[in-house]
């Protein structure tokens, strides 16, 4: 797959592998990210993968200007093969659907002419993939939701969405790691933290992970919270 290099400002270089989100672009983004990270190129500060792009921030010095970093990256990526398969982790996210945790579950059901139970069954039956992390710390952009439960964003965004809320916006589903304003339809909440600022890896999820949502009862949700507090 062809990689197009372009500058992003004066201290970053952006590698683009296409304009559409496909299995192929997703895999290439992952391979590029891994190869660059494993190469530990000295001037590289950090690597930011997105849907079809990988951005590399670098330390500008007399010996590392745009053309130099481009050369260094090209050399590393020569070794990339299309077949580079990357192992996928599967992460289970328990969700307590509806009630006070999912105030918009009913709206999503009515909008799609389904019962609340059907929405839960469809949402938790899907296999999802994390396309990228962005927008907020640990926030996963997740692909793969069934269009049977798609729902438009709220016309007026909420000023405050509680952390760990699970939502739907159009064909996307996601989990809010921290409290933020937002316009997604909230269908439930998970008791587990997605943003872990004091861990070595601050995000539970990474691009490429598979996600499974598992319905839990309100009691299980509460117990989960208590167990976490006890272990802290």
């Amino acid at each position, binding site marked *: 797959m062809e990689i197009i290099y*372009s*500058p*992003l*400002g*004066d*201290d*970053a270089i*952006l590698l683009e592998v296409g*304009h559409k*989100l496909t299995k192929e672009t997703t895999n290439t983004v992952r391979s590029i*990210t891994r190869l660059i990270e494993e190469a530990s190129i000295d001037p590289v*500060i*950090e*690597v*930011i*993968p*997105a*849907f*079809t*792009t990988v*951005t590399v*921030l670098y330390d*500008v*010095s*007399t010996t590392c*200007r*745009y053309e130099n970093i481009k050369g260094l990256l090209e050399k590393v990526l020569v070794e990339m093969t299309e077949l580079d398969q990357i192992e996928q982790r599967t992460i289970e996210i328990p969700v307590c659907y509806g009630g006070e945790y999912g105030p918009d579950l009913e709206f999503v059901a009515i909008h799609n002419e389904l019962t609340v139970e059907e929405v839960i069954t469809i949402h938790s039956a899907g296999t999802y993939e994390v396309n*990228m*992390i*962005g*927008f*907020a*710390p*640990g*926030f996963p*952009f997740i692909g793969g939701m069934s269009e049977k439960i798609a729902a438009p964003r709220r016309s007026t965004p909420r000023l405050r969405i509680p952390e760990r809320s699970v939502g739907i916006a159009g064909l996307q589903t996601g989990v809010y*790691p*921290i409290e*933020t304003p937002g316009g997604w339809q909230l269908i439930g909440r998970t008791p587990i933290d997605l*943003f872990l*600022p*004091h861990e070595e*890896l*601050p*995000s539970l999820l*990474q*691009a490429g992970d598979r996600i499974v949502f598992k319905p839990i009862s309100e009691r299980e949700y509460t117990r989960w919270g208590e167990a976490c507090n006890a272990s802290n």
Partner: protein
Amino acid sequence: MLQIEKGGLQTTIQDLGRRGFQKYGVIVSGVMDTYAHRLANILVCNGENEATIEITLLGPHVTILSDCIFSLTGGDLSPSINGVPIKMWRPIFAKKGCKLTFGKPISGSRTYLSVSGGIAVSEVMGSRSTYLRAEIGGFKGRALQKGDIVPIGESSDSINRLIDKYTKEVSPASFIQADWTLQSLAIPHYPSKSIVRVIDGRQRTLFNEKSQDNFLNQAFQISAESDRMGYRLKGPKLALKEPTELLSEAVSFGSIQVPPDGQPIILMADRQTTGGYPKIGEVATVDLPKVSQLKPGEFISFKEITVEEAQIAMLEERKLLNQLTKAISLKLKEGI
């Protein structure tokens, strides 16, 4: 230690930012004006990444709880100690009990307060910067407020010798300021109409000719909704040749995004890690301090340069900072 008597408009602890975690959606944060921050540190013999206090427009009231050497750089927000106006861009020795206050904004909008030894809050993910939205870093993840006691780190030996010397010479709750400052070319001016250099944005050619032309030839006004996350500009509407949906990609400090309303936003220190709006330009890193010091109501216009020119300017700035670091540390061997 410093005691905060009044928080001010938005007073936060920042360093050069949280690096290496953007792929997890963790924003960089850090100071808005890296140049003023670096010099504030250099003036008290700190490393450039030591945390400083970023003060915005209406400054805090601070009581100094232990003898120290500090400096103020950046925008002039009328600083004074015990009611006596003090000078910026130089080291100042202050004894315990001194009261540092700020008044009317004279020029610029952000002042940096650096204390020898640095602001010693603990690091979160390798940085002391305050990340307000995630409530981490800095002082309890929030802006400073009345009653906070801010810890200061250990100064270098040479600075400690100076502090000992002045502790004996200066009367209680009093201060002395250096009678020297930096060479004039090293002290920026903050005009209310700023021209900043920009590099081509990744999606510049998606904009129609007239918009590309207006971007470089018209002035834009800083709107009141500008903050550490982004500067929203008001000016001629910038439009695409045709509606285009883009997939989100990384953005950087200084990316100029244009949402569908056609009014550009310059992304600043607290920007999100990725964005989906087309980018018409990218502010050159060396000119970001100028942007950071603009106030709502003031004006900005853009002048095109190449990536190469922008990188040469970065290297020149680095050279200047290295020279100043050497000269100042020599000077401080004799005293402030």
